[in-house]
């Protein structure tokens, strides 16, 4: 009996720990088949299956309120010129027992339903399936080819092929005479993106709509041509079921599907998807935003920053962010390098905060980078802060010296310092984004008396400051080493 109680407690603790690792959005992030997230007039929008969609002021806390007429399933959105084109499908999907379906496109000048410019126009059918052919025309998604400005649309499900057609970017209508091309099987909820001479086709494999038992996972293939052939990392064509894994279930989040690229610039790319079930939220389907990394030419899911205690290491120099305080030597007996035969081996206790903190100044303490020595003035505890909002994928964090309330803060002269007590002041809140190479960008929410978006930057090997992010440099890239 006791064993069962212990086992149950261990399970709960494990779940809480896993909950800590995973990240879905806050507020009311309930959605299925989310469209690519759009930033419109300072707000973020995404639409899902069924009517309506979600709005967020900061990309972290989401609420209902977005409006998309037409109902149907699995919409997508793209911004071209002064138009937001929206596509969705009606019929098919086996929902009414069949696979006859139409894919629609319409447009509006704004996604803000409160704006006088809001209103969808020119709804038109751009693709169909007759219910008999090897295709089910739902789950449509756009790609605007950055190399030539041509607009493409993929669609389809497990019922046959994924297909691609070309649209007119000026009207959203199908190019006259354009014929669909088959580009994949064995997936649904496709999306496309272009990078460094490659077209990437992302598709969702597995089973949807079964809550915590859904096996949804997102996979990718790539091609030099937009119409394929798309191959995975093993050379297996997506027309034969290939696909390299991008993201699968993690922690309490089960069944990711419906990829959507969110490119924030400055070497920060994120992607949206839904998880079929969030075990923390009654198993509802929820919106998620995660970093997108690139490894050897392939996209792979990164992880939103997790709270913990870390070394904060400069990618430029490898030195660690630390307080400017006296280095305190650890007591040890000087020995030759060879162990004496009669001397017992014993552990050396590490230096603890209590050993040094009384000699630290009590006011503000400056920071620098130093050789990492696993010392108290180099250990940073990073914790999400409630009720202060966030940014796409995460809440804001506080960065404090482990075991203390001493917090990293931005100053009015665009430098960084630690203050003795964390007060939730906006200059003490930090946005931590994983960059596409896996390193991180660290940015204060606010810099007093400044509106410039500056980030934590190494100037010189050992001096931190706040400066503009330079994607070509390692100055503003940081690593978090778990302690």
């Amino acid at each position: 009996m006791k064993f069962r109680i212990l086992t149950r407690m261990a399970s709960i603790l494990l779940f809480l720990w896993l909950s800590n690792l995973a990240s879905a959005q806050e507020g009311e992030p309930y959605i299925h088949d989310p469209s690519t997230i759009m930033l419109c007039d300072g707000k973020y929008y995404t639409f899902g299956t069924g009517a309506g969609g979600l709005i967020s002021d900061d990309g972290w806390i989401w609420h209902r309120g977005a409006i998309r007429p037409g109902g149907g399933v699995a919409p997508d959105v793209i911004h071209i010129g002064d138009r937001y084109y929206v596509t969705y499908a009606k019929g098919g999907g086996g929902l009414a027992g069949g696979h006859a379906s139409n894919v629609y496109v319409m447009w509006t000048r704004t996604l803000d339903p409160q704006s006088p410019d809001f209103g969808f126009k020119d709804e038109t059918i751009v693709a169909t399936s007759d219910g008999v052919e090897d295709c089910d025309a739902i789950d449509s998604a756009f790609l605007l080819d950055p190399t030539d400005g041509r607009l493409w649309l993929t669609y389809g499900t497990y019922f046959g092929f994924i297909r691609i057609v070309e649209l007119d970017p000026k009207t959203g209508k199908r190019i006259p005479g354009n014929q669909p091309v088959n580009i994949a099987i064995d997936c649904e909820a496709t999306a496309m993106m272009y990078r460094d001479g490659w077209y990437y086709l992302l598709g969702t494999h597995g089973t949807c709509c079964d809550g915590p038992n859904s096996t949804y996972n997102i996979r990718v293939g790539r091609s030099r041509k937009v119409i394929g052939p798309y191959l995975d990392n093993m050379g297996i064509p997506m027309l034969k079921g290939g696909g390299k894994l991008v993201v699968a279930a993690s922690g309490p989040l089960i069944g990711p599907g419906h990829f959507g690229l969110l490119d924030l610039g400055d070497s920060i790319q994120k992607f949206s998807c839904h998880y079929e079930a969030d075990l923390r939220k009654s198993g509802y389907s929820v919106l998620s935003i995660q970093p997108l990394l690139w490894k050897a030419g392939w996209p792979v899911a990164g992880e939103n920053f997790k709270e913990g205690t870390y070394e904060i290491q400069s990618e430029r120099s490898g030195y660690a962010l630390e307080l400017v305080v006296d280095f305190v030597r650890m007591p040890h007996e000087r020995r030759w390098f060879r162990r004496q035969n009669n001397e017992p081996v014993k552990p050396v206790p590490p230096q603890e905060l209590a050993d040094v903190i009384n000699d630290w100044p009590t006011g503000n303490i400056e920071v620098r980078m130093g050789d990492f020595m696993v010392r108290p003035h180099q250990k940073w505890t990073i914790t999400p802060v409630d009720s202060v909002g966030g940014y796409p994928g995460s809440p804001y964090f506080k960065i404090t010296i482990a075991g203390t309330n001493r917090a990293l803060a931005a100053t009015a002269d665009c430098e960084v310092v630690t203050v003795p007590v964390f007060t939730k002041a906006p200059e003490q809140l930090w946005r931590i984004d994983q960059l596409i190479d896996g390193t991180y960008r660290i940015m204060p929410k606010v810099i007093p008396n400044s509106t410039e978006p500056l980030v934590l930057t190494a100037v010189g090997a050992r001096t931190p400051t706040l400066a503009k992010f330079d994607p070509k440099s390692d100055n503003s890239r940081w690593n978090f080493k778990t302690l």
Partner: protein
Amino acid sequence: MKIFRNIMILVFSLMVVLAFQDCSIASDGATDSTTTSNTAPSIAPYFKPAISSPKAPDDEGFLQRWLLLEPINKPNRTNTVFTDSYIRNAFYTEYFPNQFTVVPYDGDTVTVEGQVLVWHALDATSFNVKLFRFASGLDKQMYGVLFWAVTVVNSPRKIKNVRMAVGSNSASMWWLNSKEAVLLTGDRRMVMDDFVSKRLTLNKGPNIIRGAVINGPGMSDFCVRFIDENGEPIKDITISFENNKK
């Protein structure tokens, strides 16, 4: 057996000595080829006398013209004692009159605890100012020392948001126009742009730079330059202290 043991102890001791010599060389960088042929103490080829015409920074913006004071005796068997508080105490101690204000003449002297020390106006021939060679070339003590350095940078205009970028072996402290700008503590190797000041302003006209470098055992040198907001060196300045004496 005893003889064998004694031989082994001798061999081991020799290995330890050699190993420590290697450590010492490795930790302070490779020796220059020019150092091996020195037969008599000389600051050449590391320094040349500073002449009266203004000198520009080198191609990377490093300041090579300095007034250097012969080393003050400051015994330290190790550089690991150079904590922040030790360094502040050591550098804010007054060793000679007007220590934080003087722009001396070449050949001026000061007396520090009975040591008569001479200021030398020199141009370093490298980007870094090799204090060890300065001391050894003048046949002065090279270890357990504290150096003072002064120079004057003339700027054609007021330049905001510049940073003083310093590397030094070992610890050092630097002031711009009497305000503390950069502090480098600990047992350091000299790395260009190792520590960088906060954003500073170079005045139009003369700007006085003062530095102090402390060293126990091993080589000793420093390099200083100014960089702009983008990290690029500031080169449209000159260095000339002829008109800024005292």
